[in-house]
């Protein structure tokens, strides 16, 4: 089963995204801060990570940077969710290496399609 890890601190967004992705047959886990996100990625090796930029403890950029630096993880597809100052965030994340951007508010269909595209091998 394809595993999706959602790192997002807004519980309502987590709830609806999990619902939608589970209906599509994905195994979904969610975490609410950057440190836990990094630990879960290392432990559980998901197939795709949906990563919010503004996370407590370790922000999304730092999580992304650590992932890209780790030889065992650097090919993990990462979808970054941005909300504030979109173009600036986008630029910074591109510098670090992101697979795909989703700007809030996104549609469920966009997310599902993106997850499907990134996990299709």
């Amino acid at each position: 089963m394809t595993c999706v890890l959602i790192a997002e601190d807004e519980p309502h967004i987590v709830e609806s995204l999990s619902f939608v992705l589970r209906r599509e047959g994905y195994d979904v886990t969610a975490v609410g801060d950057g440190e836990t996100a990094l630990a879960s990625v290392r432990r559980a090796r998901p197939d795709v990570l949906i990563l919010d930029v503004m996370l407590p403890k370790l922000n999304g950029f730092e999580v992304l940077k650590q992932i890209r630096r780790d030889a065992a993880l650097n090919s993990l597809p990462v979808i970054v969710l941005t909300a504030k100052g979109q173009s600036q965030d986008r630029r910074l994340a591109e510098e670090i290496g992101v697979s795909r951007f989703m700007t809030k508010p996104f549609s469920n269909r966009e997310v599902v399609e993106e997850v499907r595209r990134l996990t299709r091998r």
Partner: protein
Amino acid sequence: MPRALIGARIRDRRRALGLTQARLAATLGISPSYLNLIENNKRRIGGLLLKRIADALEMPLEELDGAAERRLISDLEELTAETLLVDLHLDPARAADLAGRYPDWARALVRLQRAWRERGEIVAALSDRLNQDPFLGDAVRRVLDSVAAIRSSSEILDTVEDIEPVQRRRFVSIIADESRRLTDVAQALAAYFDRAHVGTRPITPAEEVDDFLFENDNYFPSLEAAAAELRAAIGLGDAAPERALADYLSKAHGVRLVVVPEHEAAASGPKDGFDPDAGTLVLADTTPGATRRFALARLAAALFEGGRPIEEVIERAPLLSSDAARRRARRALGSYLAAALLMPYDAFLEAARRSRYDIDYLAQRFDASFEQVCHRLVTLRRPGASGVPFGLMRIDPAGFLTKRFPLPHLPLPRHGNACPLWAGYAAFQTPGVTVRQLAAFPAGERFLFLARTVEKNRPAFTLPRRLLSIMLACDALHADQIVYADGLNLSSSAPATPVGSNCRLCVRRDCRYREEDPIIDA
């Protein structure tokens, strides 16, 4: 005010008060004949006696001895330097005439100028403040979070036909919750805008050029290509670049390099030393090597293909609306092309990466100055082959920013000073030593600052030392690629200096380093 007028003023004022010479003399404890000499300007007086006369005549001393008028004259002289009035060619020497003959009109002018300046500063600060306001940034984020949750939940309700009743209720309640949160944010935003009134910013030519460079990410592919062509035409290699440049200028453009003693260079000709009619580039014999090479490179760049590469960039720039802005941009792009000529992109990027952006190494490797290397580092923004994104600023000893290349998240103040805590200011305390700093901004962004003063050429012992501080900044996320961050804890939870952008815009109310009140109380 001329001393000669003091006597007349005393007499006028005494008469206006209805006092006789004898009466006033008695009050002052001097003889009436001596007072008569004073009133007829036959005796120069000052100090204590003048103060006693002013008191007896119930008028401020500064009005009597002309200090007020002198201040008015110097304010008027300052006004003649106002950029807005430059084309009127006001003569500072005439300020005394105006102040003497029409003091009220002179005061009105000074008062208007002050009010006009203050308004300008408020407008600029407000607009800076809005661009980096943590409250607004946070509010927008909360709005988007709520809308994202609402959109996602409502799409589920709309499209999932076989949804369980309990799940359906859950998503309806999420929508209700998020709608309430949205209401709170919207009300807070409305209240915020009730307090802060937004103005539009007057754009100066310097700001237009700043915006233009920023829009282009300070990277100009056509100029990089032109630099490569020009480099080939010159036959510029790593060896003896100065000779090659001078030979090229002489052969291709008939321009001779003339080195003259400092005082002759300062006295003659245009500021950049190039005289097209005489076909000479005049440089002082005290000009340092790196500056001399750069001057040669800049001239070669400006003359290359009749200036076409630079003009083409300027013609395509809608942001440059005035002649003054285009002139400035032409100068900036000329320097860009010269830097690209002396520090070719690929070789420079490779050396920068290999040395982990060690500026001293790069300065030696490319025979360039510290400042020239910092400038070139800021331009390494070629898509697909970019270096660490740096911002740059240069600070003069009075604290003003005289050059600025901002980063998207790091706004450099357009006017006046930056935050006094920035490494760029600390660098003045230890001239020539590189100062580094991990700086945390109120909204949470972190930057690595590194700064060092550079000493501008001092041609004589009698002239004051001229230090400028150059500061580079990069996002803390990139700092691990840079030699200057070695040994620093770069994690976002590690300690960092709490800084702001400048005091007037800063939200750190209790900062003990605050020098000015914030312009908006948030």
